[in-house]
Each structure stands twice: as structure tokens, then as C-alpha cells.
């Protein structure tokens, strides 16, 4: 009941009835693409509103209250405003690169959802290298930040771009190594496969098998998503706004929404790898649809990321590098060794 996975299969079957298979592939690709895009846009709108509400309540104020019930329509109003804004481009900017940077940023954020299992059977394409694919595709985010920083022809933007490149490259290493632990346990790279390997109650979740791996992953993922305390590429107080200082209007909105989509992406991966994905807490709770479990767990993770942001100060750029290379990296290696031992011992 209420499982959405069946719907997609049904649509596929129905299309197969009267169309040649090539057309079915194309049509279903378009449909899923639009569905994911629509879902992510709504999600980003929701997350922006949610963050504003969370920060407001943490700071003992209300946040948006006027547009709609408790300000739910505030982000839409902001979006409409941003659409109407003049699209400024600095005179000496590199026009082509400046234009493409936000598109690549948003595109990379969007592409990652090709392999995210939202629920039982709700996955666009269950690639058997799923997790590797996500790591690979998110590197385009850093390319786009570099492009934005460079093309703006602004020193602050350039500094922001350089910081983000240094940061993301550094944190990609412990992040990937933290993922290796889960892959070793599940013996597959496929996202669905990893979820299935954690079936049967919460004690099978990998967060209890390799807490160290989860810790490393979550810290590195916070840095990958450019969230406080690691939000140094756009540190408002130091670099004014970092790489997106010159962007306005819709282009700025794309960077902004991509940040929230990325935040959800790292949360979704955390849930998939360490919290059993769409698996229920206990198997007798299986009557609750799998996508509800997935969304619930992911939003909790997003909430924690937001909690970080409104509690911690920002770490300094060299401290950030030291932390990645001297603390997280050895920890990630230790995790791999421990997981290897565990697999051999407990078989």
C-alpha cells in the first residue's frame, strides 16, 4: 500500500503495450528526469524554508510568518523576486564560463539523483557502481565553483573558488575512504544492494557496524556540502560571499538551490550507507511506505546539518586542511582496517 515503486513499473508496462522499446526508454527517461527535477525543486524550496524556520526557532524568533501558513510560501516569493532581478554580469567577466558555472553546479547536484534509492523500487537507474558514480559526478560541483570564482574576475571570488577547490579535494579523500567501509560490508557498489544488505531491523545498519566510518563520512560530507563549520568557500564575513559574490538573480538562485540539494544528497547517501536506506526501523513497521522511511531519515540528517550551522563558528582554512589530512584521513584508514578485521573474524 502506498508504495510508489509499483506505479513506475505500471507506467512502463503500459507504455510497452503500444510503443517500440526505444521510445519507451526515451519517454521513461524524460518522465523520470522531470519527476526528479520537480521533486528536487520542491525539496530545495522546502529546505530553504525549513532552514529559515529552524534557525529562527534556535534563535528565539519566528522566521517567515506572513506568506502562507507559517511562511511556507516564502521561498516561492523569494524565487519569484529573484527571477525578476536584473541578471548582472561584471564588465570584465569571462562571459561563457560565467554563464555556464551555475548551470553546471545545479546540473551536477541534480545528476547525483540518478542512483539515489528513494524507496523500494523507486530509483531512476540502479547502476552497479552507484556510489562511485555519485562521488564522480559531484566533482563537477567543484569545477563549477572554480569556474564561478575565476570567471567573475573578482579577487574575493577567486579566493573563494580556490578555497573550495582545496577544501573539496582534501575532503573527497576521507569521504571516499569512509564509503569503502560500507562497500566492503555490503560487497557491492550498487546503492540498492547496500540498502538490501542492511535489511532486517536497525541493528543491521552499518552505523552500528562501523561507527568510525560514519563519523568520518559525516564530517567530510559536511565539508563537501560547504556547510558551517566548513563553509569557508563562501564565508560571508571573510570573503564577502566567496565564489558567488558577483552573481545575481536566477544564477545566484541556482547556486543557492544547489547548496540545499547537495545538503540533501549527502544526507541521502549517509542514510543509504549507514542507516539502512529505506528499510524500516523494525521489520514489523514495514507497513509504513519505504519512501517515508527514506525521507524521514534523510530529513533528520539534514536537520543535524542545519543544527551544526546555527551552533558552531567557522573553522579557519588551514585548520580545515590539517583536520582533513591529519585527523580524518588516518581515522578513515583505521576504519578500513577495523572493518576488514571484522569481516574476517565474524565472517
Amino acid at each position: 500500500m502506498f508504495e510508489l515503486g509499483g506505479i513506475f513499473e505500471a507506467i512502463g508496462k503500459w507504455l510497452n503495450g503500444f510503443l517500440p522499446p526505444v521510445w519507451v526508454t526515451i519517454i521513461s527517461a524524460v518522465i523520470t528526469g522531470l519527476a526528479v527535477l520537480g521533486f528536487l525543486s520542491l525539496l530545495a524550496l522546502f529546505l530553504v524554508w525549513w532552514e529559515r524556520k529552524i534557525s529562527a526557532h534556535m534563535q528565539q524568533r519566528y522566521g517567515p510568518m506572513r506568506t502562507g501558513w507559517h511562511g511556507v510560501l516564502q521561498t516561492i516569493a523569494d524565487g519569484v523576486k529573484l527571477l525578476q532581478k536584473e541578471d548582472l554580469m561584471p564588465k570584465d567577466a569571462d562571459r561563457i564560463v560565467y554563464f555556464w558555472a551555475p548551470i553546471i553546479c545545479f546540473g551536477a547536484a541534480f545528476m547525483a539523483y540518478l542512483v539515489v534509492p528513494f524507496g523500494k523500487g523507486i530509483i531512476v537507474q540502479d547502476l552497479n557502481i552507484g556510489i562511485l558514480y555519485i562521488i564522480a559526478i559531484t566533482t563537477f560541483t567543484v569545477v563549477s565553483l572554480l569556474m564561478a570564482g575565476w570567471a567573475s574576475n573578482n579577487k574575493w571570488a577567486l579566493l573563494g573558488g580556490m578555497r573550495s577547490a582545496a577544501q573539496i579535494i582534501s575532503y573527497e579523500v576521507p569521504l571516499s575512504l569512509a564509503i569503502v567501509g560500507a562497500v566492503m560490508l555490503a560487497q557491492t557498489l550498487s546503492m540498492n544492494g547496500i540498502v538490501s544488505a542492511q535489511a532486517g531491523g536497525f541493528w543491521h545498519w552499518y552505523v552500528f557496524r562501523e561507527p568510525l566510518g560514519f563519523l568520518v563520512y559525516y564530517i567530510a560530507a559536511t565539508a563537501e556540502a560547504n556547510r558551517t563549520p566548513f563553509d569557508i568557500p563562501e564565508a560571508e564575513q571573510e570573503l564577502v560571499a566567496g565564489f558567488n559574490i558577483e552573481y545575481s538573480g536566477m544564477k545566484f538562485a541556482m547556486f543557492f538551490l544547489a547548496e540545499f540539494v547537495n545538503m540533501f544528497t549527502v544526507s541521502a547517501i549517509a542514510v543509504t550507507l549507514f542507516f539502512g536506506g529505506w528499510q524500516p526501523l523494525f521489520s514489523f513497521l514495514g507497513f509504513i511506505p519505504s519512501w517515508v522511511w527514506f525521507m524521514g531519515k534523510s530529513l533528520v540528517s539534514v536537520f543535524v546539518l542545519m543544527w551544526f550551522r546555527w551552533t558552531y563558528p567557522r573553522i579557519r582554512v588551514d585548520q580545515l586542511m590539517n583536520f582533513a589530512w591529519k585527523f580524518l584521513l588516518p581515522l578513515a584508514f583505521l576504519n578500513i582496517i577495523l572493518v576488514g578485521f571484522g569481516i574476517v573474524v565474524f565472517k
Partner: protein
Amino acid sequence: MTVKELKTEEFMVNMGPQHPSTHGVCKLVIKMDGEEIKEITPHVGFLHRSIEKIGENRTYAQFVPYTDRIDYVASMNANHAYVIAAEKLGGVEVPERAEYLRVIMAELNRIASHLVWLATFAIDLGAVTPFLYAFREREMILDLFEMTCGQRLTYNYMCIGGVNWDIPKEFEPKLREFLKIFPSRVDDYEDLLTNNPIFLYRTKNIGILSKETAFEYSVSGPSLRGSGVKWDIRKAESYSIYDRFDFDIPVGYNGDAWDRYRVRMREMRESAKIVQQAIDGLPGGDIQTKVPRTWKPPEGEVFTRIEAPRGEMAYHIVSDGSTKPYRMKIRTASFCNLQVLPIIGINHLIADLVAIFGSLDIILPEVDR
């Protein structure tokens, strides 16, 4: 081959005049090697209004509202500095009650000013939440000021010979309520920041201001006390009635950003103590010694100074016996404190510069006047 032999280029950026962390319009031209700062040149004067010149063209009483604008974050203290100088020049006696009210207002404003500093300092380091916490308490102080003099930022409260308005009935209970909750609120801020490892990383050993440098640059106020110098004009040259109150002078040890932070946090508690003693001992009576509208102080000159939230604020007034000052020189704390930034800011990263600038608590209108 080591890195030093490799040829590197220096990189110049303009930090300001419109930058979120300069807290006003100050331009810092920074020469950087990578992200490490090699040279800082401050450019000020964007807010120069020549208040000293205005002072020569206004009567003594007319000038009080202008003092508000010298330091808009601590207007009460700025008022206080001027009226003390003018009273000393003319030999005006101030009623007891007015002195107490002045101390209450000045110390409340010191707390409010330190709260603004805390808020902006935290935000400079990327912590947004303490900002709103600090402004919540500042709001209570501003409410107290509003009910007394109708203003929330530039008060024009003190006048030569006393204060302009007496406190209303509801002032005292509100103030006592504030004093009751304030220490626990300071604990809240400390919970958020003081022992947070990231905060410690960002402030410990950052921007060390040695005693010697502090002396040479006449750094004053909490920034000086952070370097371990127990110097507070309220104690050292006890003006007004500060000798009647019991309070400590918090000092730091290393002179880094963290010490300056600690000194200000503890100073807020000390100020609350002073306000408590002042409100308990508040006598009745007049609030003003009548000073004629065309007040002519005798010919002569005077130099007085007070401890404003940011440090020493001094007035040097020369009178030629007319209704207007002949010359008025205003010495403000930020003017001297800002000069150490190029000394203590180099060889740090740009993120540290923001922390150092925040920890010095510079108010640009005070520099530019």
C-alpha cells in the same frame, strides 16, 4: 629546493569600504601571499564629519547631541565624557542623584555596547546564533533607555549640570528584572562560545598584542586589559562617583583575541554589579543644576578623560570665555586602537584578520569623528 626558493607573487585586495567584517566604512588594503597577510594599510575618514569643527560653532549645551554621534553604540558614555569636561571647565556642581543616574546609564550602555561587540564578533567567526541572543538582551537595555529619554540609539540624555530627565516609575522594577536575569544570559553566551573548540582554535594565539606594543600605540580599554595591563580609568582616575562602587578590573594574559573576548565578557558582569550597587544606593533630590542658556565658562582649558566601552575617551576643550568653545579636541579609543591592526594582523590569514578586527572592537565613526 624548498618553497622559499620558489618565486611567489603577492596579491592585493581591498577589504572594504563595503565589507561585512569591517563594521562600518573602513578600507583595509591588504597585501597577501596566498592567504597570508603581509601588509595592512588602513584607510579611514569615510565618515569624517569634523565634529571638532562643529564644536567650535555650537554653544556648549548645543554640542551634547553631537557627542552621541561620535560613538553611536555607546552614546551615554560619549555624553558622559563631554559633560564631565564641560562641567570641569565651568566648575559646575552636579547633584548626587544625577551622578548616580549617569553611572547607571553609562554602565548599562557599556553592557549594551559589549553585547553589540559580542554579536558582531561571533558573526565574524561564523557563529550566527549568539548574535540574536546578544541583541535580545540589548533590547531590554534599549527599552530602559527608551522609557527614560525616548530614544533608542542617540540619547542626548546627559546635560551640563546633570541629566535631562528623571527615570520613570517603571524603570526600577524593569532594571532589577534585567539585572536578575542578565548573569544567567551571560552564562548562555559563554556556553555557546567560550569553550567551543572551534572558537578556541579561531581566537587563541591570534593577534597577540604585547604590552609593549599596546603602550606604544596607547591602546586602551578592554583591548589593553586583554594584554594583561590592569588599567581602567574608572579606578585609576576615578571620575564621577566610580570610587563609591566595588568592582574588579578583569585582565587577560597573552593579549590574544581570546583574552580580549574574556575581558569583555567579564566586564559585562562587573558593569552589572556596578548598576546593581548604583540602583540600590540611588538617592533622591534634584537631577540638574540649572545652567543658564547662554552659559559662559571662564577662559581656560581642560583635559578630562573617561573609560568608554572601547577605551579612553578624552576631551581637550579650550575656552575663550564666550558661549562657544574656542577649540575642542576629542580623543577616541578606536582611533588609537585601530593603529595596532597593521602590527598585530600581519602573518595571519585573512580569516584571522576578521577575528582580530572584531576582537579590537573598532567603531568607525569614533575613528573618523
